[in-house]
């Protein structure tokens, strides 16, 4: 039981990072990015590639993965999604457009990645020793991934809470129109948030590739999980995201260990159903009036 709890927390920590990336994109930039999982896989591919080709540690790879993901997604937002924001007549219209556009991007990414890397599964063995925590042993790579994910998440949270740039971002998350009135450059902040979210997710992908077998088309599954976490935690709510991710990590580990490893998505769906039926505004969200 205790073992399940710790393993679940370790997994949930990495999920939290991935979902925080998506939450920045959806909460601030108002783009429901369904290509988010592909960014994760791309981050994982990059880590895999530098590790197997140059024996560079996946952690060092983060230093390259994050800025590249940021740059690419900043461009994607500015060139492709910004025109959609500008032409959208309502939030609903933007949602439909951005869902379709990011689906398109997601398939293009999968197509390109399976063309570059082939359709097979890939994994590598890094820090595959065991460590003992409270009498049970866990994969060292999981513990390291969790620690780094926590560090990045904490850094992001402090940045959002205590800096002027973070404040601007939160202002746009609350209300883009009012943010504009107090002199915030909403398009610039949105592009920044979109790029930053992708950088965070791609870092999560590099970390998760240390202990998880990925393939080119697995991204959509992570998108799905991240979406469930974001909705469960509440859009734009970092604290809620972290709590929801940990809950999902534990629930998945529990179902995989006790019932059947093939039912992990079903576990996520049970949580999702509960949220939709009882708290559609998210765990800590207030009821809309």
């Amino acid at each position, binding site marked *: 039981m205790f073992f399940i709890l710790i393993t679940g927390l370790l997994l949930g920590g990495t999920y939290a990072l991935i979902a925080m990336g998506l939450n920045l994109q959806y909460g601030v930039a108002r783009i429901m990015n369904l290509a988010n999982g592909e960014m994760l896989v791309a981050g994982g591919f990059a880590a895999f590639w530098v590790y197997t080709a140059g024996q560079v540690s996946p952690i060092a790879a983060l230093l390259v993965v994050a800025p590249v993901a940021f740059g690419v997604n900043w461009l994607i937002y500015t060139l492709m999604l910004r025109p959609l924001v500008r032409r959208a007549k309502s939030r*609903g219209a933007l949602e439909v457009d951005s869902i379709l556009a990011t689906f398109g991007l997601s*398939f293009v990414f999968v*197509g390109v990645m399976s063309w570059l890397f082939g359709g097979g599964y890939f994994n590598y063995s890094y820090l595959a020793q065991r460590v003992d925590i409270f009498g049970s042993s866990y994969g060292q790579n999981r513990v390291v991934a969790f620690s780094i994910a926590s560090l990045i998440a904490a850094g992001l949270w402090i940045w959002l809470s205590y800096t002027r740039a973070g404040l601007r971002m939160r202002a746009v998350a609350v209300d883009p129109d009012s943010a504009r009135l107090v002199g915030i450059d909403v398009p610039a902040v949105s592009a920044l948030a979109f790029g930053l979210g992708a950088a965070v997710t791609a870092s999560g992908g590099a970390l998760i590739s240390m202990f998880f077998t990925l393939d080119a*088309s697995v991204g959509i599954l992570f998108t799905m999980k991240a979406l469930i976490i974001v909705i469960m935690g509440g859009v734009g709510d970092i604290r809620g995201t972290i709590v929801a991710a940990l809950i999902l990590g534990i629930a998945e580990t529990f179902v995989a260990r006790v019932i*059947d490893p093939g039912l992990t998505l079903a576990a996520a*769906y049970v949580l*999702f159903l509960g949220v939709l039926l009882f708290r559609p505004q998210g765990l800590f969200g207030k009821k809309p009036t």
Partner: protein
Amino acid sequence: MSATDVRNLGLAALALGIAALLPLYDTGYILSIATTMAMFTVLATSWALFSGPTHYISLATAAFFGLGTFVTGLGFQTLPFWTLPLIAAGLGAILAALVGMVTLRLSGVYFVIFTLGLAELVRQIVTWVQNRTGQRGMYVLTSITERDIYWQLIGLAAVVFLAGWLIARSRLGFALRIIGNDETVAKHAGINTALAKVLLFMVSGAVAACVGAMLAPRYIYIEPSTAFAPLLSFQVVIMALLGGTGRLWGPLAGVIPFTLLWEFISRNAPNQTLLLLGLAFLLIVYVLPGGFVGLYERVQRRYRMEGR
């Protein structure tokens, strides 16, 4: 019924009649492509019945379709074949009602996300049940030929087109168009928006399950990972949007070129089908909003303006 209605009904019946004659001409490759087209026509048209007016993007087609194939797979030995599509339609409607009741009270995003994973969810559960009962995939060996499947699909297409035409003229169709334009207005006008959406989603779910049941004999061997392949949902969405959901014939205009293109790409570069799908999505968003129907209407309008 006005004279135009009578003319349109006659034309549609004539077109379906001609389509039904195809197996007399060829029973090989052309029939095989035509069956695929008929399948996607039914799926995309029924998808557009719900998603066209409401703008709710449903990605659940694969879940309903897979459900249908499993109904046939489990029941074809014990029940007469003609009952299976009906049972599948019933189950599809029930599944759609359950999903609709949970998600359609809320905004569209929840619905998209829920339906996105639905096929995978059902697949996981079916696989789990099969593992527990020690079952594996199923063989569906029947005497049903591709020609029979094709005729069944043409018949179903006729039903779907007629249903779509009737719904568009009914109070339900009117209510749905108002919801699509502005949901708040619809609520204030006294429309039970959740009920209207759930009802129409049930129609499209029932049709997709029915198609799955009809097509099961074509696959011969059914297992969860192929029956619930999520790709189908995306193909249906893209074809319907490419054609345009504004008119009843819109999805058909998307199905024909896209099926041919898909066939061509998967023969010559099988690994690039996803890339094609992605580019088609981007094309719709950036170049062809409204699909071919939207393009046709723009051209028509310009033509009329010049004529004046």
